């Protein structure tokens, strides 16, 4: 380690602005870059673009469902919308966002120069990017080239036999399959990179037991990426074999099984939820201590809980399949494992509360998003425990109750976490602060919109409204609930618009941040904002979990107590 990084002279970090470099050159720099910070920003931005696209798809669906017997879009278009919305949000919004955060922060937090394999890192990003482009090419390619089919319309988990050539004519499903296959290779590459970086590139004194909590959570996340993306890849290969070579994996007439697709998909699908939520937990574990002015409560327990979540999450997949009809033994096992995973998740919530308890809390925008995420995680966890009981699930499986539950996790925790991260690390990335008052507008609008949409979405679910219907009859009594749900979308969209405006305007007009605007404790704040290409001119030796605290308070350093 010491030999791999030659000492850099304590040079003056040049802040000279590239005054008038031609646009082409700047673009070229970004496209050929292997720098983890640029790739992190690219990953994150790609995810945000996908988030907006997927959000527009969701908005059209909500406009359609706002009133009974609506004919804004046809059933065919509605099928494409929910398929593209789900696929986009999971694979091309959430995954790139969490990978972007990992790319940017992990080397900085560990005191490394870059990720372990910088070129592989760029490869991973471009594979993910091309996967998304292939998926969206289906809108034009599906029709234009083969005269049949358009965007995929089989749902984001694409159950067999809906995907068989007989029921999915044309090439729309193939765009879905190949898009995910390719982005899956990118994900495996990035997961491998994260894991290797954490294991091999820690700076001097950065023991595993001193890593920032975010890095710990990413190590478990990377493990899950390595283990869980494989089943998806395998299932997609099988589907391609079925569709192109006449195979029979999911062809029930030839003895194949449609249920085995569900198993293979959810063996990927459930760990995937934790792949997305663990980074959000990591963000909360960084933001909450800094804005409570206390070190994180129960570091060791937090790590243990994370590892426990990682393992248990590999054994809960069939709770997505209670309504399929499994044996009572299988039901009992998956009920128990699903209920069990609530325990380590609950431990985390207690630890965050314990961190805030007695702290000097300052409600800056990152903290607001983080606190909201903790509360929403609690509620999402509670509906999760309800759904883990098989009889309850038989009643409400595939209803809007389930939709409300998992959006609570994905939007209420992961997207809130991502916004928290955006406000918290924006000064590090750009060198300027985001506007806090605009941030508060964003927060409250988004919070109100979120709760209007997803609190009230539980109710039509309880009243029996199934997912994926393109319209419903007025006599069912779902209409007013759906209207509230749809109106909430407007607030959320406004909030996101304000955020986008804030991101752009702060880049030019924001207050200059300095190295460490939040008085934080992890290594990324010890270098300049934005960090130089080589990250650290001089690496502080890490002697505790809060290396910057030790530097700022030499009279009372943490390492005396650890």
């Amino acid at each position, binding site marked *: *380690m*010491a030999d*791999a*990084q*030659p*000492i850099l002279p304590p040079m003056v970090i040049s802040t000279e602005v590239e005054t008038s470099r031609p646009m082409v050159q700047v673009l070229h720099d970004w496209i050929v870059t292997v720098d983890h910070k640029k790739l992190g920003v690219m990953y994150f931005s790609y995810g945000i673009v996908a988030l907006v696209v997927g959000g527009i798809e969701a908005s059209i669906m909500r406009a359609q469902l706002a009133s009974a017997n609506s004919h804004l879009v046809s059933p065919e278009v509605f099928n494409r919308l929910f398929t593209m919305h789900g696929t986009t949000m999971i694979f091309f919004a959430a995954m790139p966002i969490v990978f972007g955060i990992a790319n940017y922060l992990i080397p900085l937090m560990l005191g490394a120069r870059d990720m*372990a*394999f910088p070129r*592989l890192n760029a490869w991973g990003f471009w594979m993910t990017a091309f996967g998304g482009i292939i998926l969206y090419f289906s809108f034009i390619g599906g029709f234009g080239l083969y005269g049949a089919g358009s965007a995929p319309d089989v749902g984001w988990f694409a159950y067999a036999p809906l995907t068989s050539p007989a029921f999915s004519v044309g090439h729309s499903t193939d765009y879905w399959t190949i898009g995910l296959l390719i982005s899956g290779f990118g994900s*495996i590459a990035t*997961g*491998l*990179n994260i*894991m*290797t970086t954490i*294991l*091999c*590139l*820690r700076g*001097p*004194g*950065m*023991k*595993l037991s001193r890593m920032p909590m975010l890095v710990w959570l990413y190590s478990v996340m*990377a493990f899950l990426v*390595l*283990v*869980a*993306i*494989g*089943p998806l*890849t*395998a*299932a997609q*290969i*099988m589907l391609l*074999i*079925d569709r192109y*070579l*006449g*195979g*029979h*994996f999911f062809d029930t007439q*030839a*003895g*194949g*099984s449609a249920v*085995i697709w569900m198993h*293979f998909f959810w*063996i990927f699908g459930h760990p995937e939820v934790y792949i997305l939520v663990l980074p959000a937990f990591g963000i909360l574990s960084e933001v909450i201590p800094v804005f409570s002015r206390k070190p994180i409560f129960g570091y060791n327990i937090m790590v243990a809980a994370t590892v426990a979540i990682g393992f248990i999450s590999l054994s809960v997949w069939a709770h997505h399949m209670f309504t399929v009809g499994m044996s009572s033994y299988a039901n009992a096992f998956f009920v128990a494992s699903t209920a069990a995973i609530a325990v380590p998740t609950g431990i985390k919530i207690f630890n965050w509360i314990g961190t805030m308890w007695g702290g000097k809390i300052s409600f800056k925008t990152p903290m607001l998003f983080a606190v909201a995420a903790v509360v929403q995680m609690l509620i999402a966890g509670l509906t999760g425990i309800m759904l883990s009981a098989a009889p309850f699930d038989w009643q409400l499986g595939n209803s809007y109750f389930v939709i409300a539950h998992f959006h609570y996790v994905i939007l209420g925790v992961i997207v809130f976490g991502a916004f928290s991260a955006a406000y918290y690390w924006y000064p590090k990335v750009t060198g300027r602060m985001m506007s806090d008052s605009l941030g508060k507008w964003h927060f409250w609008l988004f919070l109100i919109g979120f709760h209007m949409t997803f609190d009230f979405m539980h109710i039509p679910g309880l009243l029996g409204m199934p997912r994926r219907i393109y319209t419903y009859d007025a006599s069912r009594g779902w209409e007013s609930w759906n209207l509230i749900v749809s109106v909430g979308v407007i607030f959320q969209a406004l909030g996101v618009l304000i955020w986008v405006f804030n991101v752009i305007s702060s880049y030019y007009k924001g207050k200059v941040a300095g190295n460490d605007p939040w008085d934080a404790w992890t290594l990324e704040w010890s270098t300049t904002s934005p960090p130089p290409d080589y990250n650290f001119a*001089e*690496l502080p*030796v890490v002697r505790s979990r809060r290396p910057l605290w030790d530097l700022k308070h030499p009279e009372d350093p943490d390492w005396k107590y650890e």
Partner: protein
Amino acid sequence: MAAASTTVPQSEVPLSANLRGKVGMWCLIVAESSIFCIFVVAYLYYAAKSVSGPTPAQVLHVPYFASICLFASSATIMLAERALHRGNIKQFGLLWFLTLALGVTFLAETGIEWQRLIYHEGLTISTNLFGTTYYSLVGLHAFHVTVGAIGLTLILLFTLFGAVKQEHAERIGVFGMYWHFVDVIWVVVLSVVYFIAR
């Protein structure tokens, strides 16, 4: 860094950055294993569920020769790596060539077997479930052997042009891990396809 590292006790310096190739390859092996795992599960789950013939017992012959070739190649690649560690480039090149030859022999044997199955036994990937699972599992493995053979060929060419030196032993070792992995997977595929689910 040099100045900083003198103040750091040796115990506080984490895993060496030089290990990252190996760690990265282990990660790839984990990811690949999970892909193979699903194909093996599918094979076992669908064993004897085909609604029409031919069945494995009717058409499969255990590929003893091919298997011996592949297993032997693991030994030769190990010897090659040792030769490179000692700096004996000539011996390395020879053993490396032998590894490649054994790998290609394995692929050729697979090709011959598939030719027999397709043209004489009438078993294709779309014939029945057995055909689908057999060709995809064995084919996935053969694909990995092919990738490995391409890698072997490249390194052999580098060696012939004199670009491979003793200091590359570490990196070549990382490639060797992949080849061993492909070998271990064959142990699983061989026992599942030709012995367990017969």
